[in-house]
């Protein structure tokens, strides 16, 4: 008993600063934001308790429509990212010669050595009306007039997919690495065509990786601010931008906090629904 207590003491000493750190920097500010989200200013300029900040979200169509738009695009981006990442991850784990695997993984990682801002500006240089792609299309006579490829939803979606890809590929690499090649061969041997192998063997096997990758990509996309703002152009109001505007432009921190918590709650619900639909357990997915 004594020995047990003694051996735990250093652990506590070690953990205390970390727990304190977590509490002070993560839990406490959130509690403060939560409190703030339930406060409003009444007509006399006094702060009172109210759920009005939350009701405002449902009352005012631009808020919930923006959220719906943001969530819809996040789902589309997640799906597209998955469609691109699965073949990529499959190629790296199963097709590429073993000595290239590390190199290919590194290649995927490379864009993440620079900040998101730089990556987005890179895309903007390529896509803008006076950009690199237009320059070559004009030079080769494919286009007569330069075309604006930036500032639309397609460009924004592409930018978001590009930004998210790594976070989908990495969990897929680890699940596909665990997939026994002979399962694929067995399915082939039993008369499967390639699409049925993908659908019946690879995707069910990769499901935990798909789910965890999708959660990360979905959350990252939903919470992204830079890419929709810079690449999306004039129609691309993103929900995070609305939170930012509440805090920064309108000085309405109470409304902003309420939006923040709504984002947290609704996105959690979407993920929960997604897990239910695909029959996955959260505890398994986060492993």
């Amino acid at each position, binding site marked *: 008993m004594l020995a047990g207590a003694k051996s735990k003491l250093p652990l506590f000493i070690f953990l205390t600063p970390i727990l304190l750190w977590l509490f002070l920097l993560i839990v406490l500010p959130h509690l403060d934001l939560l409190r703030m989200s339930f406060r409003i200013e009444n007509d006399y300029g006094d702060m009172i308790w109210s759920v009005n900040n939350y009701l405002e979200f449902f009352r005012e169509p*631009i808020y919930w429509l923006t959220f719906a738009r943001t969530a819809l695009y996040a789902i589309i981006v997640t799906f597209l990212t998955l469609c691109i990442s699965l073949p990529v991850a499959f190629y790296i784990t199963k097709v590429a010669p073993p000595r290239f695997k590390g190199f290919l993984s590194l290649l995927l990682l490379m864009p993440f050595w620079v900040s998101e801002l730089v990556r987005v500006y890179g895309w903007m240089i390529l896509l803008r*009306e*006076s950009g690199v792609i237009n320059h070559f299309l004009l030079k080769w006579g494919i286009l007569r007039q330069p075309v604006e490829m930036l*500032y639309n939803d397609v460009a924004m979606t592409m930018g978001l997919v590009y930004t998210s890809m790594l976070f989908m590929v990495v969990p897929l690499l680890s699940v596909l690495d665990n997939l026994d090649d002979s399962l694929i061969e067995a399915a082939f041997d039993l008369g499967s065509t390639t699409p049925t192998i993908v659908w019946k063997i690879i995707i069910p096997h990769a499901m935990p990786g798909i789910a965890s990758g999708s959660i990360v990509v979905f959350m990252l996309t939903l919470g992204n601010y830079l890419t929709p703002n810079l690449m999306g152009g004039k129609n691309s109001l993103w929900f995070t931008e609305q939170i930012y505007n509440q805090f*920064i432009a309108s*000085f309405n921190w109470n409304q902003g906090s309420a939006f923040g918590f709504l984002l947290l709650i609704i996105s959690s619900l979407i993920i929960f629904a997604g897990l239910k639909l695909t029959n996955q357990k959260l505890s398994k997915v986060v492993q």
Partner: protein
Amino acid sequence: MNKQALSLMVAGGFILGLASGVNAETLELLTWKGYAPKSLVEKFEKETGITVKTTFSNNEEMIAKLRATRGAGFDLAQPSQDRISSVQEKFNIYQPIDYAKIDATLIVPSMLEAVKKNTMVDGKSYGVPHVYGTSGLIVNKKTAADANDYTALLDPKYEGRVSYRLKRPTLIAMAFAEGKDPFALYNDAEAYQALMESIGQNLIDAKGLVKTYWTNGDALLQSMRSGEVNVAMAWDNGGWKLNAENPDIDFVAPKSGALGWIDTFAIPAKAKNVDAAYKWINFMMVPENAAVFTNAEKYGTASAGAIEFYDDSVKANFQRSFSQADVDNIKWYPPVPAKLEAIEGKILDKVKAAQ
């Protein structure tokens, strides 16, 4: 046990050391991009031995940052003069300026008086004028020769070649262009909201013409330079910078009046190094130093006598873009009352969200 006590002491000492390491004199400056040119920072550091740390921001973020810390973390901030009094009243994030510590001879008296008046809360003033300038149009004369007022931004002629910020100056400029005076409605929130909503609707109706809503000044200049944008609402200095590269592009003072702003020095409530802040203010107002800034950034300053040190091109810029009538027509921002920002914010969100 002894060993543990020793290691705890070592750890404690380390933390104390970290805290005291910050003690070397520094000035934490929260300002706009370009407001602290490198050459001046180096000169200041050499003269005073104070290290200057700059953080670049804009009006809204400056207020948000200081509000979050209740006025701590920075020794000197540079908000626009119209954004001080209401913020100070509500959040109490600045401390009154001790004008005895400012060398008033360095500052244009009329500007100093105006800023003192506009930043006054409960009989105390919170700002010292630094930089002034205007917002108006940057126009490519070759492709948009007759763009001479904000209404050009709503003109189908320039479809796809128009850009502006989705910020309050745009709403105010559009109101002036319609012949209204939004400043006169500052104290009538309901009338102001009605006016702004109609302006917002105009912006939504003309949304199809917009290339993009710019957020970053350098990115806008790049769009103008490459010919992607021909008419934009922006700050005068941007137009003048482009004019030096391409004489076709220039700043135009709009017919209904350029919007005049003055950025100030204001000292956050919990500033640590107030002395350094005053030193910086007086340093920046020395005519030679103010001229270094103006020659680089093309903005005017409140420094009296700096004009002697201006480059000829800087003087020429002003004369080219502003006739005497234009100067008289500049609409100087009065202090913004509280609540207007929330009204404007929602309208701007609507414009951005509109399809």
